[in-house]
């Protein structure tokens, strides 16, 4: 499954400045592993010591927060877009 990953500015040093990269993966977890293989450093930015998604990292699969899907086990299909987005503030 070839999917597109949208990379936020703070992580673009790892991708030589690219804002979008492609990986082959069947689940979100696998996508993170593949990112790590292609662009070392990704995994520790996204996952904590226990392998859980860091609490200020939001991952969206085609505009839906993966926490509303199956989290890291969410399945991917060809052409999916996975966005990595830092949390931001607002409201009231």
């Amino acid at each position, binding site marked *: 499954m070839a999917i597109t990953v949208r990379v936020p500015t703070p992580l673009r040093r790892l991708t030589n400045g690219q804002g979008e990269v492609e990986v082959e993966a069947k689940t979100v977890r696998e996508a993170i592993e593949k990112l790590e293989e292609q662009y070392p450093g990704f995994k520790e930015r996204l996952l904590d010591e226990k392998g859980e998604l*860091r609490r*200020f990292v939001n991952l969206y699969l085609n505009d839906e927060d993966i926490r509303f899907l199956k989290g890291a086990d969410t399945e991917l299909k060809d052409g999916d877009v996975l966005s990595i987005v830092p*949390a931001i*503030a*607002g409201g*009231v």
Partner: protein
Amino acid sequence: MAKVKGLKCRECGREYPVEPIHVCEFCFGPLEVVYDYEEIRRNISRDKIENGPKSLWRYVDLLPVENPTVGLTAGFTPLKKAKKLGEALGLRNLYIKDDSVNHPTLSFKDRVVSVAISKAKEFGFDTAACASTGNLANSVAAHCAQAGLNCFVFIPANLETQKIYGSLVFNPTVVAVEGTYDDVNRLCSEIANDLGWAFVNINIRPYYAEGSKTLAFEVVEQLGWKAPDAVVAPAASGSLYTKIWKGLKEMKEVGLIDEVNTRMFGAQAEGCSPIAQAWKEGRDFIKPVKPNTIAKSIAIGNPADGIYALQTTRESGGDWETATDEEIIEAMKLLAETEGIFTETAGGTTIAVLKKLAQKGAFDPDEVVVAYITGNGYKTLEVLDGHLSQPVRIEATLKDFKEKVLAKV
């Protein structure tokens, strides 16, 4: 000499220079302004503040701006002793901090935005933008007009009409995004870093958020340099609530007050209460939710400062409560009828929660309790459709007046 040392990641502690950045490159944690409190302590005094401008800029020593140029009239809103509402709730020392009359756009956002746009000018930006539930957009648009900056505001398309007009009148580009505030936020956070704009709640956020501390500073000064016993404040992202606490602690840190024993209470709408839910379930992490409430200005399902809000509650010995849409409307009417203050749904949420907390005995009757009213009811009139009495329609005759009005008194 400098009061600001730099930025620091709240999660991993990595340090960064004073730049328009908001996220730690390593762990994605939010960056926060770090001050040199020793230096500030030497410069600040009650006297100096009392003789300062009648705006939030009287506390400039504790804000991350060197030279305030925009929003010079923001802040210094009334702290009203709420005698009648206090009687209704069994509280003898209840106060309303009334940011529904903040200048120029009638919400607490004028505080954060005057700091953010002043900072954006210092950084040399020519364009400012924001993702907003309405009030922030109003304030950014107004302050950009003042400052002569280009302005783009991004809002959920289903916002209250009055709030949309409240931005359009300042002639920014208003982008109405199909989706919730969280969707708007995600879009903005994806585009923000490529545009070279000052996104006040994204790349300017560390500075912007500091403006909320002035809600604490002013209350302490208005209470005669004393921290309140309890605070009730609404929470969306959790930033305002967290910064009130930071502000109180800073005042002690720099020697303006001797002690802070304030308990921090948070208010959320039941239809969007990820922080209150986490608190009730004893979690230290947030599960995002899909908002479903009339309190649109606090309808944030994925609160960025949620975990810090929980930390604040634990540290201060506070609590969380929620209010249903019906309770929110009732509370808006209660505040209006007892204190003559017309707030929007976020304020209704705060008062509804204040009432619940009072009923469950969270406060001693003599304690000094401050409820923060953050926005103005004239901006969200449509939520009151069907909830108010109707005008008595009469002909311009004495007969009609007597029959239809006087006879019913």
